[in-house]
């Protein structure tokens, strides 16, 4: 992995740039959680999101 860190803010920005709104992002998390719960967890960890917040996002 390079030094360039991907984080939640950058990721959200990326999604906004391509036109995803809050509702769509929520739907995306739900989809992610439904179909690949472990992958969702790994992805959120990869974004360095704190554990507590990961729990909240996965419960969306």
């Amino acid at each position, binding site marked *: *992995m*390079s*030094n*360039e*860190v*991907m984080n939640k803010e*950058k990721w959200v*920005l*990326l*999604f906004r*740039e*391509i*036109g*995803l709104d809050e509702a*769509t*992002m929520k*739907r*995306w998390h739900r*989809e*992610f959680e439904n*179909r*690949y719960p*472990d*992958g969702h*967890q*790994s*992805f959120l960890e*990869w974004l360095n999101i704190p554990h507590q917040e990961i729990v909240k996002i996965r419960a969306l």
Partner: protein
Amino acid sequence: MLTIGQVARKYSISRSTLIYYDRIGVLSPSGRSDSNYRLYSERDLKTMDRIMLFRSAGLSLDAIASLLDIEGGDLNSAFEHRLSSINNEIQGLRNQQKVILKLLENESSALNSRVLTKDTWVSILKGAGLDEAGMKNWHIEFEKTSPEAHQDFLESIGIEQGEIESIRQWSRQV
């Protein structure tokens, strides 16, 4: 005539095994010394040879005992019986092997499911309503805002270096 110790050494078995064979009637030595020690004759040793042969074929002592009196043909049926029980044991082991492989497989696929693949990503992005054009835009933005993270990301979902280069190339060109 050989003593029990000599016979034990000759066949690399313990004296207690020979005493046990005597007790259950598989092989009773034909002689006794003046002090009442067991003595084995040539004939006893011939019987012992057969016992060892049957043992190495995996026959039970019961089966051996009943075979020792018999010559020829009936041996075949005893060995056929043993063969079918070996086959059953093999089948049992195969079944165990299958179960274990299955367990290992589940274990590793549970691990793998933590790793996201390209197909996984495409399907969840589609699920969020992103079409082909939307995904293209996503790569373009990714490349523009965080080129190195874009590279890392594509590597992390297992895309080949060649394909990564072409994705990043068209992402930059637009």
